[in-house]
């Protein structure tokens, strides 16, 4: 039982880690650190770096949370810790 919970926790940490990697990438890397090179690329009337800073990162955050929530429910079922 304890082992199974430990495995569940490991899987959770892996999921959280990959989601936060994306979180960091779109906001800190694309919108701040690499904003100048990305601004040379255009997305419609937007410069890409600027788009990430004022639009794109926010959309990504929303998608990330729902993705995380969906994956967590799958993990909960898989490890039989789903709350009835």
């Amino acid at each position, binding site marked *: 039982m304890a082992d199974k*919970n430990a495995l*569940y*926790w490991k899987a*959770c940490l892996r999921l*959280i880690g990959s*989601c*936060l990697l994306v*979180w960091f990438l779109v*906001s*800190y890397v694309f*919108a*701040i*650190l690499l*904003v*100048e090179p990305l*601004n040379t690329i255009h*997305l*419609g*009337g*937007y*410069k890409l*770096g*600027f*788009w990430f*800073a*004022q*639009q794109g*990162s*926010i*959309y990504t*955050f*929303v998608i*990330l*949370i*729902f993705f*995380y*929530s969906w994956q*967590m*429910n799958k993990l*909960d079922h898989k490890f*039989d*810790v*789903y*709350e*009835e």
Partner: protein
Amino acid sequence: MELQALTYLVVGLSFALYIGIAIWSRAKNTSEFYVAGKHIHPIANGMATAADWMSAASFISMAGLIAFMGYEGGMYLMGWTGGYVLLAMLLAPYLRKFGKYTVPEFIGDRYYSQLARVVAVVCLIFISFTYVAGQMRGVGIVFSRFLEVPLDMGLFIGMGVVFIYAVLGGMKGITYTQVAQYCVLIFAYTVPAVFIALQTTGHAVPQIALGSEMLDGSGSLLGKLDKTLVDLGFGSYTEPFNDKTMIDVFAITLALMVGTAGLPHVIVRFFTVPKVRDARSSAGWALVFIAILYTTAPAVGALARMNMIHTVNGADGTGIYYKESPPWFQTWENAGLIAWHDHNQDGKIQYAAGDAFQGKPDFDGEKRGSHGERLVKNPGEGKVAKNAPFANEIYVDRDIMVLANPEIAGLPNWVIALIAAGGIAAALSTAAGLLLVISVSVSHDLLKSTFAPQITEKSELLSGRIAAAVSVCIAGYLGLHPPAFVAQVVAFAFGLAASSLFPVILMGIFSKRMNKWGAIAGMFTGLVFTSGYIIYFKGVFLEPFAANTPENWLFGISPEGIGSVGMVLNFTVASIVSSLTAPPPENIQNLVEDIRIPKKLVREE
């Protein structure tokens, strides 16, 4: 209908709605008063969280902030949304599993320490009052601008309404009113944005309009805005780091994100949903509802700035005569949000880079100049800024970008009335959420758990109501007599949340080894370092010790962003101290294992 009457009608109807909801959803016991009985649907909780989160400042000031900052405005947009990712993945579900009522309660139990709990309560009360003072002020300002009642009067009405539903309904009443308030505020925000987006670009969706071509064939909106601003001597709108460095933007974004996740009035919202998985999805819904406003704001900002420059500098870009200025210009000049000084004596208004006044304009009573403009006592030297075609002659308060937007764009009166109701909804919902966490902390953490553990549930509920009533009065007092530091303390609230609360909660969940000494030392370090740095440069109660300029900052990080350094220090000190002292007792390690697993509810109330 006359604008004034229409505004009264719309605002009055919205108040009737809030009070009706409050009476319908009275709290009957402490669980309902503290966490709405944990019966709130995740989508409804998401809406309530969004209303709780979006304050008068988000509604009234943010678009203007972005309009004047351009790219750098993105740090607020990302900072105030990215925190929800941290909240959803790192805090909310585990705190919900913990299953109690307050954030200090978690800290006190997890670190088996009354000291840790009391430190957390102090942080919480300080953060919340800081914040709520601004909200009450916001209610007063909206009232005085739209309903032409004195600011004090507006504040008293706002206090009365919050009093009714916070004291009666507790968390349950607040939650359902916030759902209604969210609907009012988001409708009020998006309707004018859609109108303006359509007028300028032909696209109804503001998020698309921002990246579109102008209807008048002058190229893309952002491209044109860049060019117009550079021609007037400003920095480009979309190019980064005009007035802030990369490291500072990075640090501020991080401090805001982590601070958001650590704000107690946001965290407790996730205690109200029925299940752990609801806490996860509810954070997603909250962010959806917040994102609707936060992705619209940059469009409103850019469109409003463009409209404003065109109206003021005229079609040929040389300025318009004051006598021919549009009615909104004079309306908001009368309200003191716009000021004009004719530096070059040509009778025309010109807008460019540079300061027209020394600081904020100091109006000379109601005295009028030769053109009919309000006289100002502190005009600047009227120098032409570098790269600008002429000297700047006007002061524009950033709140104008939302408040006057419908008038600038010539929208119908009912849209203006709606903005008033929306602004009031935004301020009231945030104020109520903050007042509730304060009163719950007082009645639950201080009374029930620390000083008077023997009180019955009934008297605990009563003391919660009394604490709520007292907090409303204190908040009202702070709104009436804002201490000089109120404007500077937003950095404080986020900095403290980021450097004290967030790290200890996070380590309490993700580290079984973290013990009470580590947590207390970490919290203390983060708190002292962050508040010390802010006071050093901003001098909250004292004179600042050093000029608040980039040369003096540590690593070039401004006081707004220093919470991120405080957070790192907190983590570091906590880990070192904890590794040198005894591990937490076994029952605490079991508690940590419990909160990580959604099933197997051990400590159900």
